[in-house]
């Protein structure tokens, strides 16, 4: 079905997300929607899927003007969307999730429904267990459930929001093969991405969005990566150049660390790692293989089952969070506003959260507001951050929040940093700043453990790369051994 979105405008209370965007996709093609974080890609597709109402503009489907008041209308018209945060109910089983919102008999028939799902799954090469509960599935499996849902509902227009962000390189290839075959059967396929290479590889046409506008639509055989990058970013961003110093003495040592998980008995199993002074060790892996639990255990936010953690030879595994901070361990958490910063507090207060007990910031337990402001101004100046010092930080953009967090965590030249997906959700400029800050800390001798789901980031920054699968480190590679296919295989649980 032909899809045409015409002059769509959408404002949210704080921002105008779309300033009159037009977009067009045809049956039989795979169309990529490329743009940086915050460009408005998700908002545009949510409007097509009936989840958001456009303020202005119209939706045309197969030449007819359409208007939906709820997602149910869009679904009935043949629109199917796989959202970036999957729309699955975790405590329900796969087949129950697939039944949701589908008409049918009043009584559910567990075995018959599951068998039907299983046969459809086999037919399309989307292998999942229909009776498994969704929370037990890997992200790749969950995505297959979502695709299966669209097929089950016979969607004619398929929209996928950042579908590869949770997949290994091999899984991504398999996904694009599936999308290609769905397009060949006459469906219209749109996928959202911010990754140039995959867009060039997998799409027939590419629409680039920037700042709430559609900048251009190109055929991918006519497009070059450099041009796309310029269209997407609208300016030139120089990636930082790593120049690692020779590694020094061991600083952060992890010895057979085992950590219990929330949903399974052990999230981290016997992990052994050493990070030397001035070294960045990357940890690669598909989300949910124990990376978060490892980072939290190192920071003291999660109890451990067994094993040892040492900083400069000093045992830390039983130390409190404050002891770890005082020993020189810094954390850059995955969730900036939940764990990293206090949203309702000002930038100045957030900046002194770790050092407020020391003079001159406080004396006999009483804060000195002038000293606090002076310290905040100095830190903001050093990282050239234009942040209002007196407004609550929850109003800041993701990039600003992360810069603020780095300013606090890296200000006092920590001995070691544990960074968890530090550039997730940031635009290219902010991500480059974060990388620069990490490299600068490295040059000053900080030992960095960088956990990330973005393989490009790890390949850029890491001196050594550990691959994590199912709670274990399956291999540690030196820079000379960095090889994408091999790392992808390890991330999927294959042997080295």
């Amino acid at each position, binding site marked *: 079905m032909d899809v045409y979105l015409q002059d769509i405008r959408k404002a*949210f209370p704080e921002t105008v997300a779309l300033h009159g965007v037009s977009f067009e996709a045809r049956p039989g093609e795979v169309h990529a929607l490329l743009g940086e974080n915050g460009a408005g890609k998700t908002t545009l597709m949510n409007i097509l*899927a009936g*989840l*958001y*109402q456009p303020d202005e503009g119209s939706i045309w489907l197969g030449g007819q003007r359409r208007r939906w008041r*709820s*997602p*149910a209308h869009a*679904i*009935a018209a043949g629109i199917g*969307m796989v*959202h970036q945060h999957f*729309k*699955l*109910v*975790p*405590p*329900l089983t796969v087949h*129950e999730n697939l*039944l*949701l*919102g589908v008409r*049918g*008999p*009043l*009584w*559910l028939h567990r075995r018959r429904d599951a068998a039907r799902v299983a046969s459809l799954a086999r037919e399309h090469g989307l292998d999942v267990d229909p009776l498994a509960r969704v929370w037990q599935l890997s992200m790749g499996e969950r995505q297959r459930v979502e695709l299966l849902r669209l097929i089950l509902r016979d969607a004619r227009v398929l929209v996928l929001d950042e579908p590869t962000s949770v997949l290994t390189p091999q899984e991504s290839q398999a996904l694009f093969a599936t999308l290609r075959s769905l397009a060949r059967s006459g469906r219209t396929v749109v996928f959202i991405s911010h990754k140039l290479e995959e867009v060039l590889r997998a799409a027939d046409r590419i629409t680039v969005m920037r700042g709430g506008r559609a900048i251009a639509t190109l055929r991918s055989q006519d497009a070059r990566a450099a041009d796309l990058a310029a269209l997407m970013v609208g300016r030139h961003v120089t990636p930082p150049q790593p120049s690692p110093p020779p590694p020094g003495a061991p600083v952060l040592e992890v010895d057979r660390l085992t950590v219990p998980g929330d949903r399974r008995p052990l999230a981290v199993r016997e992990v052994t790692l050493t990070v030397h002074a001035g070294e960045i060790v990357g940890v690669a892996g598909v989300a949910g293989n124990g990376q978060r639990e490892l980072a939290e255990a190192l920071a003291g936010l999660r109890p451990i089952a067994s094993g040892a953690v040492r900083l400069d030879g000093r045992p830390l595994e039983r130390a409190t969070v404050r002891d770890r901070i005082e020993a020189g361990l810094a954390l850059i958490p995955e969730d900036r506003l*939940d764990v990293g910063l206090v949203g309702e507090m000002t930038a100045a207060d957030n900046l002194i959260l770790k050092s407020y007990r020391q003079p001159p910031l406080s004396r006999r337990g009483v804060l000195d507001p002038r000293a606090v402001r002076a310290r905040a101004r100095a830190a903001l100046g050093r990282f050239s951050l234009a942040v209002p010092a007196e407004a609550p930080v929850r109003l800041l953009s993701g990039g600003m929040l992360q810069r603020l967090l780095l300013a606090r965590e890296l200000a006092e030249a920590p001995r070691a940093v544990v960074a968890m997906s530090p550039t997730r959700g940031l635009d290219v400029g902010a991500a480059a700043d974060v990388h620069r800050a990490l490299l600068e800390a490295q040059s000053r001798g900080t030992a960095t453990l960088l956990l990330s789901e973005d393989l490009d980031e790890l390949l850029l920054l890491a001196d050594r790369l550990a691959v994590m699968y199912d709670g274990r480190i399956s291999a540690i590679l030196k820079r000379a051994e960095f090889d994408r296919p091999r790392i992808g295989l390890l991330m999927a649980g294959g042997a080295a």
Partner: protein
Amino acid sequence: MTVHVVLAWLASAVAAGTPLVFAAVGEIVAERGGVFNLGVEGMMLVGAVSGFIVAVHTRDLALAIAVAMGAAAAVALLLAVLTITLGADQAVTGLTLTLFGAGLSSFLGKPYIGIPSPVVFRPVPLPVLGDVPGLGPVLFQQNLLVYASYLLVPAVWAALSHTRPGLALRAAGEDAATADALGLNVAALRYTGVLTGGALAGLAGAYLSLAYTPAWTDNMTSGQGWIAIALVIFATWNPLRAAAGAYLFGGVEALGFRIQAVGGTTPSYFLRMLPYLFTLGVLLVVTMRSRRPGVPGNLGRPYFREERYG
């Protein structure tokens, strides 16, 4: 002789537990849909008083029950509009509802204090079943409302776990954004859950004023609405377990009466405290064993489509 005493005690345990069965199962339906209704006590009182008034004036028990359920559902509708449509805080609104229900029922019931109802639900021993030794006198020599509760519990359980609307309601309570994106009408599902819960709370109240202690007295629910809410947690949102818990509570309550009746020396205040103490203890044990068992993922959270969720 002793067997006789035990059977009589068990029978009164069932009779005392039945209002909790209605109220807790109703609250489970509301909460499975994602709405936390702390107004159970208030809705029970409204049900108790309105059912009683209708019975006094019309001598029609069926009509009395229908009005009790309708009146309590109307009170629940207030909560539904405030929390589901307008996004008001569910805990605060529920508390307000309890105060409102207590005040309203006390106002409406003033002229009826001390009046006996001309019609009440009396025990109706079932043929055959009522004569089964042991089980018969405990379960099947009760009134019609108790029999209704026997049917209600498995029906609600089956509806929640084995029907399409039940699945949809659970999805709305677990993850409203997902339910919405899949084309379900989250608000309609939640309204249905809350109104069903309200009607059942009204039935629980009418059971008290027309069957269990047939008369109207101020605040005659004496905290049972709160016990029902606690039972929901204790039962991990499962109607079958909630019924078991309700009968346990009823058993402890009936035990207190019995000790008093045979002239035990334990102070009566202590005996009346027992069931609440017991509930507290069970809750403590259940909650300590696992941290948040079975709680619907979006319980207590309003949903608006275009709002952003973390």
